[in-house]
């Protein structure tokens, strides 16, 4: 379904340039849930934007159903890391937005938007504005809005990154339920190990700059799952396994950032 083939991306910057991604390859087959994990600054959002067609000028190929991606793709739906609900629209209007753009008649798009709000657990908040919702509710609105677009591939960039651990585990349950109901092919980018293991069939561990594939961890926890799984020994083993790979990268990232600080101070 999604193939990322040997992608390399460099950014020109004032002090020479950074290689954000280097020879990164990964695959997501239909109906699967894949998580990409890596330390902050390793190129996760860059990968997200490349697959979504918002960043150009990279080497390598991105294929969806065998077709190369060139620019924004109809079959890819994106949920962004930043706050992205439209503050001037109600929750319902936000979710109906992509349907409105696609020219779906009003009655139908509102009905579909209502069903999706129910799916993400926001029934009863249809006429609220984003400012009246919590951060987690806004992110769920954004997810419902992207699902309304009916993408073949759901791409999410740290959608719960700004939320606390407990909220995140509970939202993880909702994501699992949505995945079960829709069998939606999903690529989730995250920096949380528990989130990756809780949700995914496979965890792609990325190295710190330049970002390339370090290891692929299969998560063979039985489905359906819910957040109670975090207490199982198998879950603990998988988290430990991912962390053993990630640890070296995370500390490299931390050193890099700290040495930059030092340069800035001196």
């Amino acid at each position, binding site marked *: 379904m999604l193939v990322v083939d040997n992608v390399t991306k460099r950014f020109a910057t004032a002090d020479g340039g950074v290689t954000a991604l280097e020879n990164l390859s990964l695959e997501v087959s239909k109906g699967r849930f894949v998580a990409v994990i890596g330390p902050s600054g390793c190129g996760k959002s860059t990968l997200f934007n490349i697959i*979504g067609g*918002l960043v150009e000028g990279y080497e390598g190929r991105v294929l969806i159903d065998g077709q190369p991606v060139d620019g*924004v793709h*109809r079959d*890819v*739906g*994106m949920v*962004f890391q*930043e*706050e*992205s609900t*439209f*503050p*001037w629209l109600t929750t319902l209007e936000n979710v109906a*937005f*992509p349907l409105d*753009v*696609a020219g779906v008649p009003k009655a139908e798009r509102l009905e579909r938007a209502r069903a999706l709000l129910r799916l993400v657990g926001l029934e009863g908040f249809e006429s609220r*504005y*984003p*400012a009246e919702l919590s951060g987690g509710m806004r992110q769920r609105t954004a997810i419902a*809005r*992207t699902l309304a*677009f009916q993408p073949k591939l759901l791409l999410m960039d740290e959608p719960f990154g700004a939320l606390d651990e407990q909220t995140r585990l509970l939202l993880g349950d909702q994501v699992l339920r949505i995945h079960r109901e829709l069998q939606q092919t999903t690529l989730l980018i995250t920096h949380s190990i528990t989130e990756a293991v809780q949700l995914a069939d496979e965890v792609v561990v990325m190295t710190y700059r330049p970002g390339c594939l370090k290891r692929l961890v299969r998560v063979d926890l039985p489905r359906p799952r819910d957040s109670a799984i975090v207490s199982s020994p198998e879950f603990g083993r998988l988290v430990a396994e991912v962390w053993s790979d990630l640890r070296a990268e995370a500390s490299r990232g931390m050193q890099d950032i700290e040495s930059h600080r030092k340069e800035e101070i001196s």
Partner: protein
Amino acid sequence: MKPATAGILGVAAAALAMEGVVRAGWVSPLVVAPPSALPEAFRRMWDEGFILHPALITLAQAFAATGAAAAIGIPWGYVLWRRPVLGEAYTPWIGAAFAAPTVLLFPLFLVLFGRGYATTIFVGFIAAAIPIVLKTREAFVAVPKVLLDVGRSFNLGEGGLVRRVAFPAAVPGIFTGLRLGLIYALVNIIGMEFLIDFGGLGRIASEMYFRFEIPGMYVAILLIVLVSWIFLAALTRLETWLRPR
């Protein structure tokens, strides 16, 4: 206490203090009119036709000037955003023009347009256009990139992106510009009316001044405050209609 009650009480307290200061004889009533003299002055001016008609004339001019400034200033601010080179080239100049007291150019406008509404409205237009251009550009620049990316990810084209994402996101900022523009237009139009002794409330203030009718001047000034309040309230209505949040 409600904000409106607090506001009215505050104004009442200030009026009472003024009254007290004049009654106590600390300030001559020829310099500061006691507020109690205002109703009488208002009635006299009403009978002379110095209230409703001038207020409407000034309101209409401010409306025309701000409307024209919006019609030209909003697209202009938009262009300064869409063409960053132009934006960076011209924004400092427009910002500098904002600080310039354009009213002082009134002899030039008198020569160009004569002593009439063309001059007063033109001065109001210039004064309103500058903040509208600046605030419109600022509002568009401040639209979060992620909102535009959301629109793009839903296959919106450039036109749709501006119409359905950038513009609604910029509405609050644009209205800040309209509010500022309106106030500047009103101040400049009234100042111009006062200077050339022509038109609405500014002319009345000037007339009262020459007749040495201090309470009349105060009435004229209070009317000006009332007129701008009406206009700002109407603008807020329009904004909530355009963008409920």
